[in-house]
């Protein structure tokens, strides 16, 4: 591959948005558009032939890398596995609210977060990170939630006492000293 092809390969790889010819020209000051185009074409052809896992596709007036449709099934399976091992920020936030305020009801969690947390709560229940421990003696007798044993396992903690206290978190996050790192 030519130097220009390498460079174009790195640039298309790293960009989230399709990379247009104009963008490439702006980055590669002084390289004629025709040369860039030829490099992209050669690069794209290289990925197209000889069966590869990824290729360069044309989208939104530019180019970007994508996996080939042939591998769709496996790609989705991998992403599902990855997703399963991760909690969304919303889930994490809801979990944090429950962890620090337990026992709590759904509407208390929603109030803390300022957003309806029914969906996130459902996900946490499905993942068994929280559990229902009864009902609150209040109008409507809402369900009361607590974190589960799996929750501790997930965080690698022995007990809830090991959660950083609110003061500790505040101290860490609001350290006024010029952050010297």
């Amino acid at each position, binding site marked *: 591959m030519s130097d220009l092809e390498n460079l174009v390969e*790195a640039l298309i*790889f*790293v960009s*989230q*948005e399709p990379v247009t010819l104009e963008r490439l020209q702006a980055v590669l000051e002084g390289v004629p558009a025709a040369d860039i185009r030829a490099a992209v074409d050669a690069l794209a052809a290289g990925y197209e032939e000889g069966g590869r896992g990824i290729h360069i*596709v044309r*989208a*939104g007036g530019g180019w*970007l*890398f*994508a*996996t*080939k*449709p042939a591998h*769709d099934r496996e*790609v*989705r399976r991998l*992403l599902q596995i990855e997703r399963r091992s991760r909690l*969304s*920020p*919303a889930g994490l*936030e809801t979990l944090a609210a429950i962890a620090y305020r337990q026992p709590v009801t759904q509407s208390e969690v929603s109030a803390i*977060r*300022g*957003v309806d947390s029914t969906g996130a709560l459902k996900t946490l229940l499905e993942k068994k990170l929280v559990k229902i421990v009864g009902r609150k003696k209040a109008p409507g007798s809402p369900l009361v939630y607590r974190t589960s044993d799996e929750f501790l396992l997930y965080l690698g903690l022995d007990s809830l006492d090991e959660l950083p206290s609110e003061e500790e978190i505040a101290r860490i996050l609001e350290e006024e*000293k010029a952050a010297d790192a």
Partner: protein
Amino acid sequence: MPEPAFEIPPAEEAARAPSAGAGDGYQVRLGVFEGPLDLLLFLIRKKRIDIHDIPIAAITRDYLGYLERKTEIDLDREAEFLFIAALLIYIKSQMLLPRETDLAEGEDPRRILVDRLVEYQKVKAACALLREKEDAQILQWKRDFLPPLPGGGEPEPVELALFDLAESFFLLMKRRAAETTRTIRGRDVSVEAKMKELVGLLRERHMIDFLEYFEAHASLEEALISFFCVLELVKSRQAAARQDELFRTIRVWLRKDARGTAAHE
């Protein structure tokens, strides 16, 4: 006044003490040392002393000499430097005590300091190696987004982003509140006007850095309105927003299918 007990070799001089005073000779900046242990190691190296057999009186003199020549350290750091100074003086006094028999190695009063210095020296040496690794990695760019899946449409970070957005907003508000004790007189801004401005900007720039956009506003009120505009655009699925990491910026862009219609709303 006797000669200073130490001299800084030229190479170290440049690296360690960059601020040379205009007329009043040479100013030592204690700030260039990571801490008292760093300073001690520097003094030990300069004297080419075996770290396991430190002539404690001489090193204490050098160390105190350095503290006296300090130009700028804050109180917190000063305490840390003074603590080690006190330790040095304590060890020196222990060494001077008459003893009936020679000390066994484990009883050497310097031991407590030497152990710390050896440990710290290792950490510092490891830093040099880790820095090389950091420098090599920093030049290699990894992708931090999901590439398009065939037939999969846009990745759906929207719900996720809304919460991240709120969280960053909270942090921003806090920071802003802390920064602005002065009163700000804002000009009146309507939601409609702001929305139009935001959509126009998105169409023009393709993608905006929300924090940058947010910070650019003169008044808190205007910034607030722009925030709600973004929320509204995301909620109505005209725009997408994404934050890859907590405390990082949020990128906002118009959804492809909305690029034609958003302006007319």
